[in-house]
């Protein structure tokens, strides 16, 4: 067998057996064969968005080429076909998250819309002046701003769980924040800026002891580890399809049925009603109550294909393999003088944020790009995190199961080149 591109670097990833046939997996992702600036693409910007396997691309193509129709309203063949596929994906998501019922799965545009939906529907119905919502110091802006908007609207207050210098939440402080005024806790499962895996099981338990519901921002967790919403017992869980190897513009909000039933609709329009007269409108049952208008049907069906694909690989294997890549990358980058890793939590997933002494992350990004290495440089939509660590920005490499130790070596060489340019 010829040594295919994408095999594990011999000097790397020795820590465990290699749980995935990465060379074969890479064949499924056409974009990974690309060159940029004359160099093989090394795609380390998976936390921003992931690449799509051919099967997802084909599914979108097949849908538009042979099945396209509106759903829940046609009595013709294509509409029935599209409706069946759309609803079958809801079942897939239910199994993927181990939700107890498929009506607890609401299709939204992405994590951002999922959180806004809860803030505007649940929040506006149940929050009063003086109530509090608890978030954490490492949230993405999309889990900060919707709550600030709600606070503004109802006179509620935002409380923030602090973290230590490794990027781990201070749970004692968290416990102290919970009180009679706390109406909701909303935290990231995995931090996109630091990679920290938060102990959300414990966070949920503490909140539930006081009957406080918890929303989990799963944008960075769903693509990297098995999520079981019943085991976690979270009240809401949001994630984005595009970070899970699916299309952009589609995401999922899981909500416990009793919450969703008690919540008013988020938007009004077609599909979310059962009867409309000019005097009164009767809302549809859940989840349709929250899916106003023609949804992103192709996106939903494409997401279904993505879920099938990752489930086929197995998220436990994905988590184990990515853990090896992260450990290898951490060790290799740590050998570079002047490089500081931001986010050193004991529990981390797939994100490696770093700064180089004397070089702005944006300049790192540009030099790396010319080496074919795609990373993100900036504040990662988590400006409070940057402020916490006293840096204007970081460079962030984020991994997926199709990345390899060899690619990490390319990254490390490219970072050394940065030092040469700015030496």
């Amino acid at each position: 067998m010829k040594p295919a591109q994408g095999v594990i670097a011999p000097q790397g990833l020795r820590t465990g057996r290699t749980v995935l046939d990465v060379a074969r997996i890479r064949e499924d992702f056409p974009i990974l064969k690309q060159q940029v600036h004359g160099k093989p693409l090394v795609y380390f910007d998976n936390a921003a968005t992931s690449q799509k396997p051919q099967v997802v691309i084909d599914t979108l193509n097949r849908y538009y080429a042979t099945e396209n129709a509106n759903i829940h309203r046609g009595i013709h063949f294509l509409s029935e076909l599209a409706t069946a596929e759309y609803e079958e994906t809801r079942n897939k998501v239910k199994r993927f998250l181990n939700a107890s019922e498929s009506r607890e799965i609401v299709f939204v545009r992405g994590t951002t819309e999922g959180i806004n939906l809860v803030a505007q529907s649940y929040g506006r119905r149940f929050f009063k002046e003086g109530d509090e919502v608890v978030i954490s110091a490492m949230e993405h802006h999309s889990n900060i701003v919707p709550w600030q908007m709600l606070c503004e609207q109802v006179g509620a207050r935002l409380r923030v769980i602090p973290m230590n210098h490794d990027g781990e939440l201070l749970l004692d402080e968290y416990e102290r924040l919970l009180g009679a005024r706390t109406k909701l806790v909303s935290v990231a499962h995995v931090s996109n800026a630091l990679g920290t895996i938060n102990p959300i099981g414990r966070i949920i338990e503490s909140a539930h002891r006081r009957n406080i519901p918890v929303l989990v921002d799963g944008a960075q967790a769903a693509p990297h580890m098995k999520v079981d919403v019943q085991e976690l017992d979270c009240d809401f869980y949001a994630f984005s399809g595009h970070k899970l190897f699916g299309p952009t513009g589609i995401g999922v909000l899981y909500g416990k049925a009793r919450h969703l039933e008690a919540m008013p609709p988020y938007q009004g329009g077609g599909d979310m009603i059962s009867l409309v007269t000019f005097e009164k409108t009767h809302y549809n049952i859940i989840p349709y109550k929250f899916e106003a208008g023609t949804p992103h049907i192709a996106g939903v069906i494409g997401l279904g294909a993505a879920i099938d694909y990752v489930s086929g690989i197995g998220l436990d294997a994905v988590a184990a393999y990515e853990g090896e890549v992260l450990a290898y990358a951490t060790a290799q980058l740590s050998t570079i003088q002047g490089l500081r890793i931001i986010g050193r939590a004991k529990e981390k997933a797939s994100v490696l944020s770093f700064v180089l002494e004397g070089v702005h992350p944006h300049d790192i990004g540009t030099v790396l790009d010319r080496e074919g290495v795609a990373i993100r440089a900036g504040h990662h939509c988590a400006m409070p995190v940057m402020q916490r660590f006293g840096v204007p920005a970081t460079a962030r490499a984020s991994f997926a199961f199709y990345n390899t130790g060899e690619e990490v070596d390319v990254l490390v060489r490219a970072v050394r080149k940065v030092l040469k340019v700015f030496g």
Partner: protein
Amino acid sequence: MSELSELYQEVILDHNKSPRNFHRLADANRRAEGYNPLCGDQITVYVKVEDDVIKEISFEGSGCAISKASASMMTDSLKGRTTAEAEALFDRVHKMLKGEVNPGDDSHDLGKLAVLSGVCHFPARVKCASLSWHTLRTALKREKEVASTE
């Protein structure tokens, strides 16, 4: 010369390492903050204008090499110029950054600023290089306090 070494020329790296006029200006009578939300670059430009002439100009802030060097060179090249000259130079710099002028063509009178012409090969970096200029323009016009490249 590769595009990368054209971007990070010696002069630029030098201005990045030791930016000129990099301090606040106590007696400035124009001031504006600029901010590039894409990468978190932040800059404050201070100007002392008398009779439409830029007597003093300085800046503060944090940013990448390109934005810092560009701001540093901007302050260097504007001291003693009229605000109208500054405005005209802004237009020429902007054209250069977008790759619309030939830096070898003297008629554009870009002077030392021509070393920034390599930026045009890096569309994502044009905003870094133009941030200080946008901020200056805001300061001179005092339209509003915060300039943004967005």
